[in-house]
C-alpha cells in the first residue's frame, strides 16, 4: 500500500474531497484501502441498518404522534432525540473521513508520502490517544446527561401536562407559549422571581459560610503544638461521613417548633426565646443555612488540611526570619496558598448548593407556606421544579423553569470563566 507520488501538479486533494461523498471514497483514492474499508463498512451499514429507525424517529420528533392511545408522544420524542444524536454522530464520522481524505490528498499534491498502515496506526495512537481516552466517558455522558437535558428542554416547548398526557391524549409542540405564560401570569412571575431570589441568597450565604468555617477550622487544627490531631480530624469529618439524608431528617426533628430539643432544651439553656423554626420562613431559612454549614464544612476542612500539610516549612521559617508575626504569616502565606489551591473545590460547592435538593426537600419540603406564591417559602428552583413535576404534573412549566435556571447558571459560569485568570493560565502548553 505504500505509494509514492512525485507528480508536481496534481489535484489529489480536491478529487479525494469529492470522492469522500461516498463513505471511504477519499481513502480508496489515496490508496489507503484498509482505512477506507473501515469508514465504508461503518457508515454504510449504519445508514442502511437504521434507515427505518431514522425515518420513524424523525417522524415522531416532528409530529409527536398522530393517533392517541397508539402513539405515545413522550416515547416518540425520546426516540426522535436519540435518532438525531445518532445521526449527528454518524455525520461526524463521515466528516472526519472526508477531511482525512482531503488532507492525505494534499500530502500527495505536495509530493509527500501517504502514511503506511503502521505509521497510521502509530499516528492514531499518538494524536488519537486523548480521544481514545475520552470516548468511553463521553459516550456515557451523552446518553445519561446530555440526552436527558435535551429531552427535558424539549418538553418546555410542548403542552405536556396532566390534561395532555399520553396515553389518552397526544402532546403537541406549542413553541414559546409556556414561557410567555410564566412571565405574563402574575402568580407565576412573582413566584419565579421570589424563588430565584432565595435560591441565590441561599447559595451565596450557605456556601460562603461552610467554606469559611472549613478553612478556619483547618488552620486552627493545623497548629503545630496542638495535640490529638487525628482524633479531632476524625470528629470533624463525621458530618460528611454520615449520609446527608439521614442527618437532615434528624435535624428536622430537632428543629420542631414545639417538641424539638432545640426549642425545648438548647435555647432555654442559653436563655433564648424559642424560635418558629418550621413555620416562619425567616427562621426556616436560618435553620437551613446552619444545617448546610454543619453538613458542608467537613469537606472543605479536609481539603484545606491537605493543602496546609503540603506547604513547606521553610516558607514560614523565612517569614519568621523577616520578623513576620503569626497574623502576617496567615495573611500572606497560608490563606493565599489555601484559597488558590481549593478554588475549584469552592466553585463546585457553590454549584452543589444551587442545586441542593435534598436539604430543602427533606427538612421542611420547601415550607412553610407563604401567601401569594405557589411555591413554599424555602423552595429553591430545583425543589420547586420537582414539586411541579411530581405533585402537579405540570411538566411543560417545570421544564421551562429548568431552562430558565440553566440559562441563569450557565450565564454566571461563563461570565466567571471569562473573568478568572486561572482559566487563562491553564491555556499554557
Amino acid at each position, binding site marked *: 500500500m505504500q505509494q509514492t507520488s512525485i507528480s508536481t501538479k496534481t489535484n489529489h486533494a480536491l478529487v479525494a474531497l469529492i470522492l469522500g461523498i461516498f463513505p471511504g471514497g477519499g481513502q480508496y483514492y489515496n490508496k489507503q484501502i484498509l482505512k477506507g474499508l473501515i469508514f465504508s463498512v461503518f457508515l454504510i451499514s449504519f445508514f442502511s441498518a437504521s434507515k427505518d429507525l431514522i425515518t420513524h424517529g424523525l417522524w415522531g420528533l416532528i409530529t409527536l404522534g398522530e393517533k392517541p392511545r397508539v402513539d405515545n408522544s413522550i416515547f416518540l420524542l425520546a426516540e426522535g432525540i436519540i435518532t438525531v444524536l445518532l445521526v449527528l454522530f454518524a455525520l461526524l464520522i463521515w466528516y472526519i473521513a472526508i477531511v482525512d481524505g482531503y488532507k492525505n490528498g494534499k500530502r500527495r499534491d505536495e509530493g509527500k508520502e501517504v502514511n503506511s498502515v503502521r505509521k497510521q496506526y502509530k499516528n492514531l495512537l499518538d494524536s488519537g490517544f486523548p480521544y481514545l481516552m475520552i470516548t468511553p466517558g463521553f459516550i456515557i455522558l451523552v446518553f445519561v446527561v446530555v440526552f436527558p437535558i435535551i429531552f427535558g428542554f424539549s418538553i418546555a416547548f410542548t403542552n405536556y401536562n396532566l390534561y395532555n398526557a399520553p*396515553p389518552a391524549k397526544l402532546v403537541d409542540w406549542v413553541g414559546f407559549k409556556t414561557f410567555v405564560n410564566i412571565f405574563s401570569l402574575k402568580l407565576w412571575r412573582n413566584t419565579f422571581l421570589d424563588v430565584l431570589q432565595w435560591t441565590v441568597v441561599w447559595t451565596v450565604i450557605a456556601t460562603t459560610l461552610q467554606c469559611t468555617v472549613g478553612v478556619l477550622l483547618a488552620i486552627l487544627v493545623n497548629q503545630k503544638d496542638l495535640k490529638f490531631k487525628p482524633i479531632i480530624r476524625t470528629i470533624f469529618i463525621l458530618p460528611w461521613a454520615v449520609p446527608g439524608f439521614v442527618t437532615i431528617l434528624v435535624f428536622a426533628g430537632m428543629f420542631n417548633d414545639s417538641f424539638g430539643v432545640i426549642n425545648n432544651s438548647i435555647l432555654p439553656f442559653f436563655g433564648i426565646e424559642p424560635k418558629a423554626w418550621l413555620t416562619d420562613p425567616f427562621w426556616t431559612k436560618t435553620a437551613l443555612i446552619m444545617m448546610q454549614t454543619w453538613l458542608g464544612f467537613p469537606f472543605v476542612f479536609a481539603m484545606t488540611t491537605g493543602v496546609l500539610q503540603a506547604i513547606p516549612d521553610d516558607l514560614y521559617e523565612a517569614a519568621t526570619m523577616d520578623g513576620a508575626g503569626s497574623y502576617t504569616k496567615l495573611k500572606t502565606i497560608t490563606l493565599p496558598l489555601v484559597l488558590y489551591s481549593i478554588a475549584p473545590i469552592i466553585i463546585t460547592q457553590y454549584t452543589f448548593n444551587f442545586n441542593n435538593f435534598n436539604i430543602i426537600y427533606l427538612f421542611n419540603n420547601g415550607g412553610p407556606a407563604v401567601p401569594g406564591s405557589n411555591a413554599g417559602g424555602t423552595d429553591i428552583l430545583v425543589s420547586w421544579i420537582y414539586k411541579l413535576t411530581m*405533585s402537579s404534573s405540570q411538566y411543560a412549566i417545570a421544564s421551562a423553569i429548568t431552562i430558565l435556571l440553566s440559562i441563569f447558571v450557565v450565564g454566571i459560569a461563563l461570565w466567571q470563566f471569562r473573568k478568572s485568570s486561572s482559566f487563562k493560565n491553564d491555556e499554557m502548553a
Partner: protein
Amino acid sequence: MNKLSKIALACTLTLSASSVFAQEVLNVWEDIQKSKGIAQAIADFEKEFDVKVNVLESPYAGQIEKLRLDGPAGIGPDVLIMPSDQLGAAVVQGLISPVTMTDEQKAQYTQSSIQAFTADGELYGYPKVVETLVMFYNKDKIAQPFETLDQYKQYSKSQKEGNFGLIAKFDQVYYAFGAMNAYGGYIFGQDDKGNYNVEDIGLSNAGSVEAVTYLKTFFDEGLIPSGIYGDNGLNAIDSLFTEQKAAAVINGPWALEPYQRAGVNFGVAPLPKMPNGKAMTSLLGVKGYVISSWSKNPELANKFVQYINQAKYAKIRFETTKEIPPVVEVINDPIIKDNEFASAIATQSQVAVPMPSIPEMSEVWNPINSALQLGLSGKQDVKGALNDATNQINSQIEAFRSGL
C-alpha cells in the same frame, strides 16, 4: 409409520406440556404491608383458575404515578390499588380502563363507595377499603368521649405544661374539612345529579371562615402546639399520643395498629359536634382496585378482583389488616358491628362526604393547605388566606383547562 406415530406422540406431548406451562399470569400491585390480607384469596384464585398471580407491594398513593411510566414500558401491573381522589386524573390520562359490573354486583358495595369510583358515568374500580377520620381518645385520661368540640377545648385548657388535650392536624384540609363542612363549607359545589361545578369553590365562604376562625382559637391559646405544622406534624401527633402526652387525637384507621403496638389504652369514637350543634363531618376516602389500560388480560383481571372482593375474603382481609371493606354483607357482620373501632368508622362514614374524584381535585390540596397553615398560625388573616387559596385554585384550574 412407527416413526410417524412417535413424532405425533412427541407433538401431543409438547402441546399438552406447553398448555400446562403457558399458565396465565396476573401482576397485582397491593398497598404496602397489606398483601397478607389477600394472600388466602389469591391462593384460592390461583388454584381455581390455574393462574399465576404476582403481588408487589408499593405505597398506594404513588401507584398511579408509577403506572404512568411502567405501563407503556410493559412492566406495569394488571391490577393496582388507588385512592378514589386520584380517579379523575387517572381517567383523564387514560391510565385505567373501566370495569363492568352488573347492578346485582354493584349492590354488594355501599353506594358511596361505588360513587367514589364512578367518573363520567362509568365505573372504574372495585372499592376495597373505606377510610375516614375518627376520634382516638386515651381511656386512662378521658373515661367517656366528649360530645362536643368545645368540651374537648375545655378539657385541653385544664392540661398542665407539656400535656395536651385534643390535638389534630387542622392545618391540612383533610383534617379541617369536617369542621368547615359543618358550617356550610365545601370543596366543589354539586348540582342535583351530583356533578361537580369546579367554578364553585366553597372553601372560603362565610361558613368555612367561621369554622377556621374557631379552630384557630385552639392554636391561639396554645392548646394545639405549633409543632404539628408541616410535613412531620403527623409524626409529632402520633408520638404525643403514644407517649400519653395527648389525651385525644383525630386520625384515620391507619393509626390503629401503631397505637395498639405502643400499648396505649385507647377508645375510638365518631367526631364531636361543632359549637353550632352540627356534627363534624369528614372526607370519605375510598381505596379500590383498578385495572391498568395496559393490562394484556383485562377480563381475567376483572374476574380476579371480583373474586377476591367476595364477602368471605373481604372478611378475612378485615381480620388481618383491619381495613374496613365497603362490602355491605361484611359491614353488617357482627365482626364489624361489635368492634368498637370498626363501628365508629362505620358511623362516621355515614356523615362523611366523599372526596371529589375529578381531576381538578389535584389543584386543591396545596393552595388550601398553605392557606390553613397561614390562617391558623396568624401569619395572615383567616378570610384573606382562604380567599387567596380559592383564587389560586380557580386560576390554576382555568389555566390548565385551557391547555396551558
